């Protein structure tokens, strides 16, 4: 010990190796062991979560289809001035036919048509219809093609058609993101969608506003419950806690359907109100398939996520704080508002973040009880994934949703401080 510290050089361990080295060696073993323990989960998360999400997000900008299917055409189109009112020349048309013959052989041309149809209606049918006829052309001998194609379908003589192909021939595109915010990629740059196609911004706004409303009603309903639970003796609190957790024991679908039974016009609540004479029979309340129904059902479903963190934070607030405040002359309300409430804010914060993030991406409940007025952006994403098959747009919408959540999280951290979030 003495010679290790006295010679001024690096401190040595008992066997003569530098102390830092042997410490690192000792710690490395621990780190390896820790890594080994989390490895199964890490691999599982990588394979089942991070990689799929990453590839999905990549789809929101990936746009290889046009340039892969029509490589020669895209190369020739570079020479063509998209701003001119003249359709491109013969070289583009012959390149196009050559590309199309290959694509039709591989049955890729309909996919291309579908892809371009997102940008300009009618492209899908144009490609399908023309495909059948172009199949019979031989790119080597049948030229020139310009007139022939325009004969097949006069839209091939339309400058717009070629502009669309040229605009969307880039490999990485912002087109999906522009679509996701009700804009589109045009040869003249980004432009707003026509009025009748602008729905996504509205949906984003609605999703945010309704998620906030759901979070707020969860706070209002959950706070008193959490307070009661935290102030009851442990035995009673545990029994009541079972009631709070009871919804978790039933399937989400069952609970949502139950709300349908409760809220519909021939449902329990309306029947009772009519029977009591509080509502006339011919003017039953519309409480389902709209925003009200979605907010009610989702508040009920997400309420436990608000109560649990609030409860565990409130449990740690000593009752002597309130007594101390009252002994100093504070009324019940002042004692609550100045002392108890600030101490319970971390619980509200944790619950709100949970409920808000869960509800902003909620899908099944709005789908069942939301009708057309009460659906969320996630329902639109699901539609593009499974019905319209516009995965690029779905991915862009998902990426925006993710970004919004991250921004809100960041804002929360700035305003309240993430250290102030406690789950217990």
């Amino acid at each position, binding site marked *: 010990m003495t010679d290790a510290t006295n010679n001024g050089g690096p401190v040595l361990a008992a066997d003569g190796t530098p102390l830092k080295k042997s410490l690192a060696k000792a710690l490395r073993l621990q780190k390896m062991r820790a890594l080994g323990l989390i490895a199964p989960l890490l691999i599982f998360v990588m394979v089942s979560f991070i990689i799929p999400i990453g590839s999905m997000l990549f789809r929101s900008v990936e746009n290889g289809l046009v340039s892969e299917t029509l490589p020669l055409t895209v190369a020739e189109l570079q020479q063509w001035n998209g701003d001119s009112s003249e359709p491109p020349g013969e070289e583009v048309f012959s390149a196009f036919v050559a590309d199309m013959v290959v694509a039709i052989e591989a049955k890729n041309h309909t996919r291309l048509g579908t892809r371009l149809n997102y940008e300009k209606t009618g492209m899908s049918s144009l490609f399908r219809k023309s495909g059948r006829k172009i199949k019979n052309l031989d790119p080597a001998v049948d030229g020139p093609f310009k007139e022939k194609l325009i004969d097949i379908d006069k839209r091939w003589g339309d400058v717009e058609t070629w502009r669309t192909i040229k605009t969307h021939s880039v490999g990485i595109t912002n087109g999906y993101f522009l679509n996701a915010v009700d804009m589109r990629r045009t040869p003249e740059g980004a432009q707003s969608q026509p009025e009748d196609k602008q729905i996504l911004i509205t949906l984003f706004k609605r999703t945010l506003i309704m998620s906030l409303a759901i979070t707020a009603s969860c706070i209002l309903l959950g706070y008193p419950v959490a307070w009661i639970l935290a102030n009851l003796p442990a035995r009673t609190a545990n029994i009541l806690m079972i009631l709070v957790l009871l919804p978790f024991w039933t399937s989400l679908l069952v609970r949502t359907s139950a709300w349908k039974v409760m809220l519909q016009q021939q449902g329990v609540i309306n029947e009772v109100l009519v029977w009591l004479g509080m509502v006339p029979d011919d003017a039953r309340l519309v409480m389902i398939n709209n925003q009200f129904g979605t907010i009610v059902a989702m508040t009920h479903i997400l309420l436990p996520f608000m109560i649990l963190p609030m409860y565990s934070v409130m449990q740690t607030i000593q009752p*002597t704080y309130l*007594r*101390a405040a*009252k*002994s*100093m*002359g504070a009324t019940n309300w002042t*004692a609550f508002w*100045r002392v108890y409430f600030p*101490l319970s804010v971390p619980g509200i914060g944790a619950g709100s973040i949970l409920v808000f993030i869960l509800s902003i991406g909620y899908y099944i409940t709005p789908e069942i009880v939301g009708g057309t007025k009460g659906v969320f952006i996630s329902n639109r994403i699901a539609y593009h994934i499974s019905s319209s098959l516009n995965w690029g747009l779905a991915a862009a919408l998902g990426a925006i949703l993710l970004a919004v959540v991250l921004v809100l999280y960041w804002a929360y951290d700035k305003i309240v401080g993430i250290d102030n979030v406690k789950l217990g």
Partner: protein
Amino acid sequence: MPDAAQNDAFVEFERVQKSYDGETLVVKDLNLSLPRGEFLTMLGPSGSGKTTCLMMLAGFETATHGDIRLGGTSINNIPPHKRGIGMVFQNYALFPHMTIAENLSFPLEVRKMGKSDREAKIKRALDMVEMGAFGGRRPAQLSGGQQQRIALARALVFEPELVLMDEPLGALDKQLREKMQFEITHLAHSLGITTVYVTHDQTEAMTMSDRVAVFEDGRIQQLAPPDQLYEEPDNSFVAQFIGENNTLEGVVKEINNGIALVQLDDGELIDCNPINVGVGDRTRVSIRPERVEFNKDRLKEGTHTIKAEVLEFIYMGDIFRTRLRVAGNDEFVIKTRNAPDQVRLEPGAQIEIGWLPEDCRALDA
């Protein structure tokens, strides 16, 4: 003395009872009155009802029966925040989300006091507990002793006439506790406030209080100044609870001229001061260890002495503590001052011990 206090009583408990479950009484028939400026300690083992009494006075518990008066008016139906009583809690209960200055400002703000008045009072209160530089800190950044001072300052900042303290020094280490005992007493007396202090630590009660109320089984067993409590306990519970005490059991044979002759269970006879016993009663005789004498020259002529065997001698520096077997009791302890001429008793030695009859109190069995 109690009669004089009755006239200008500031805090009064009259026939107060408290039950939590409707079956057993936690506080049984409590009568207590204290004058302005007194430092009264409620001392007792846990579960003796002392904290319940404090909470009833603060207004956090309601008396099941009886009257509690403050300055002559009954406060039974006045909510805690209107009683104007300062309180120091066991765990200090400083608000963790406020700075020290904000904590002290709280009672002044709820009284709608102006900003400049508040600042002056906060400064005065912090200086009073020598914590003037800590106003901007948060409670978690202070040590236990500093938090204790802040809690005290916060209870005093709105200048209450009555301050209640619920085992405020329980969480501190011994040295700090002794220092704070002195400071709290000093502060209470210099400000002239009335203090009710709850503790289970008898040393704390003895060193701090003007009077001590010893609680047991929901009743006050004795209410007296510390010296009287120690030297003249009213019953065997108080004698046992306060300080170190030797107990011998026997029967009162006769009482002559205020001196009782007690026959111990092994037949020995001793002279005692009868307190609450009559002829023929069983009694517990209580003698303080430092009042026992084994040097015959220092005892009065004709004093009854009894035989004892030395079991153990412990050197404690300032005193010697010797354990004896007396009348079949192996736990009989005597304390002697470490003086140049003091005898150090050897274990195994046979000696005779005696005492002044007035120091040996025959109490209820």
